[in-house]
């Protein structure tokens, strides 16, 4: 019996009837009160470190340095910056290259690992896939300084095959979206593979057995049984990756440091927001960029939330 059936059946109609019942003994009311208790700790933290800062940023984007309300002046000013459109293009290309690769490859690799019989092998492979994720930010500068330089790189054969003879050529502007996508995938995939693997584990064995008995092979099982049940997880991964993609910051910063500025410090929108705030002392412009990024991610996420049923129960 599928889980989804039971839970959806419990939904609107039944709930509505219960509530309309007025003063029924409140298993539901008690549950609701306890729910408030359960979320209270998180809500406190969320208010302090999520909501208030977000509202602050929102406010900053509509006001100027003297505290006057200036409608959309900050947004217009920022979008006319000569670095703005290039940054948008960079981020767009990066997301296109990365998101598709990530969603597809992570799911594929998670399915493959899940199908590995021996537990030690499966754990080891997951561990290996994860290791790059432990190298963050400043600690990876030296790594990329060497890995992207064909004269000393462990993958120099690959770089040369792709036509690069020097570090500068590897990070030529046209290559950067792909370079960043590869780096971001290298560091980020392992974590998501672990999540997807955990999600796959939560699918009842009986369901898989039933499919097998029905004659489904691995691919059919994957496509018709496992993937649909992973809908929420994949949606979540899509949203988070979208957000992470629009907020591209660490990879260009690391490469910028490694190449001493050949990869510019204003490559991505997030970097531009940072420069506005801390280099140009224009906090309002910075907030405007952040709000624009938020609106785009939010818009795309709403689409994914609805299609992926993220807010539905079960």
């Amino acid at each position: 019996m599928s889980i989804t059936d039971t839970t959806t059946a419990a939904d609107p109609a039944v709930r509505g009837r219960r509530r309309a019942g007025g003063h029924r003994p409140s298993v539901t009311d008690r549950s609701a009160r306890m729910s408030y208790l359960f979320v209270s700790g998180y809500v406190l933290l969320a208010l302090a470190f999520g909501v208030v800062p977000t509202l602050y940023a929102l406010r900053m984007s509509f006001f100027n340095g003297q505290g006057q309300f200036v409608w959309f002046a900050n947004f217009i000013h920022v979008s006319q910056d000569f670095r703005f459109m290039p940054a948008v293009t960079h981020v767009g290309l990066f997301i296109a290259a990365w998101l598709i690769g990530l969603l597809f490859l992570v799911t594929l690799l998670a399915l493959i690992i899940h199908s590995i019989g021996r537990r030690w092998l499966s754990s080891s492979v997951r561990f290996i896939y994860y290791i790059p994720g432990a190298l963050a930010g400043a600690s990876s500068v030296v790594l990329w300084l060497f890995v992207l330089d064909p004269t000393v790189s462990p993958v120099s054969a690959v770089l040369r095959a792709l036509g690069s003879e020097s570090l500068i050529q590897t990070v030529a502007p046209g290559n950067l979206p792909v370079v960043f996508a590869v780096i971001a995938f290298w560091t980020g995939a392992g974590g998501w593979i672990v999540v997807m693997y955990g999600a796959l584990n939560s699918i009842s064995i009986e369901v898989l057995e039933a499919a097998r008995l029905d004659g489904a092979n691995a691919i059919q099982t994957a496509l018709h049984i496992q993937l649909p049940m992973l809908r929420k997880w994949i949606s979540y991964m899509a949203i988070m990756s979208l957000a992470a993609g629009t907020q591209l910051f660490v990879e260009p910063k690391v490469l910028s440091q490694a190449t001493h500025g050949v990869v510019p410090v204003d490559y991505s929108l997030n970097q531009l927001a940072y420069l506005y705030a801390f280099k140009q002392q224009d906090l309002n412009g910075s907030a405007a960029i952040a709000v624009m990024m938020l609106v785009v991610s939010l818009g795309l996420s709403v689409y994914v939330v609805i299609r992926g049923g993220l807010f539905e129960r079960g």
Partner: protein
Amino acid sequence: MTTHNRRAAMTRQRRVLVTTAVAASLFAAAACSSATPDTDDSDAPDDSDGTSYGFETVEQDPSAPITVWVDASRQPAADAFIAANPDFPINVETYDGGADGSGSFQTKVEAFNQAGSGWPDVVFSTQNNDASWASQGTDPFAAPLDKGYFEQAFLDGFTPGALNPLTVDGTIYGLRNDLAPTVTWYNQSLLDEFGYDVPTTWEEYEALGEKVAVEHPGYIIGTVGDSFTPEIFFWAAKAPVNVVEGVDQLSCDTSDPKAVAMAELLDNLIAKGVLASQSVFSPEFVQSYGDKVLMLPGPVWYAGALFSNPDSLNAAPGTIAAGLPLAWDGETPAAGNVGGGTWFISRHSANLENAKTFLEWVTSDPAYQVDVAQGLPAYKEVGDLWLAKQAETGFFTDSFADNVSTAAGQVWDGWGFPKFSQEAVWAKTIIPELAAGKSLVDLLPAWETAIKNEAQVNGYQVS
């Protein structure tokens, strides 16, 4: 059914109202709390000891400890000070010094400005253009030093031109730690072996390059692969591409004859293969040119970073010489400048006297600057002592001390120190194109546009 719908609608409505109310109240709260902090954080100037600092200070406390920020390489300076002044109340904190354009100094100051507290008393920065922003704004960080705070006699003790990066609108806002003028490094023994003369003009340099290309291919007389290349070549060529005319005025003209002449010279030599296109810090440079460096115009700190460094060029003692800066034929020679750290004192300091004591010591006391420091001190007296000490080791040829001293005083003053990094603009705009084989002369207009764009977003009016 209807009851359910109406109830659901009411619940939704109520939900929306509650959310809006909460949001609005938080918005208001945020609005109130985020009002720009009053920029005038200072009390009446403290003239209790009769001296006027020339700017509004906070209330002074002669026993308050001072907080000093240094980078790891300047920690020995703080340590030496503490050793010489054991009872001095001081807290030393290390940070990255703003190295590699990280901007951490500016970021932190901006955060403190917003919060209204937290500034350190003394800061060291590896970047030499921090005075451009630290002296400006509604709540400037840097204290002016020449309006009554430091004695003029002390300030005059710096090598002429050393305090230029720290002078904004005629006022000095900090002290220079070390100098980094460019000299014409060359390999004396190779030069003798090949029978060449040391060039004294750019024209002679170019001619030498052409000869080397034919007679000794594989040898180089310079590099153009670093982001500080314009500071070596275009600065010394007196090209007006970075003229900071005022706090918010910048002019840049890459079509100026000097800029074009230098670009043509570089293009010519690059094409002839006598200018390496790798960074001097890259593995390729060491691999390909390790012992083929005939000449290398570059900053004084190449001495320790490249020539006497066993992991880099690892030159044999006595072979490397520091030649004087080059000049255009018929003109006075000019040196460029690549780096040189700076010290600042915060306007918000509660113990300006102690901060001054520290700063005077650290820039001019031989116990640090001669005995420990690795760079050419900017304070003339200790600078000369330092050069003499380097000369004693005999690693470089005899003329080293004199030539470097001369070069230190020949840094062209027509190259400014704007709020943005010229090196970053060069790295972003020129280096990839040069690597792709474009000519520098063709890239000049793009370079000018890039400089002007960057200047404008940093608040400059360009011409």
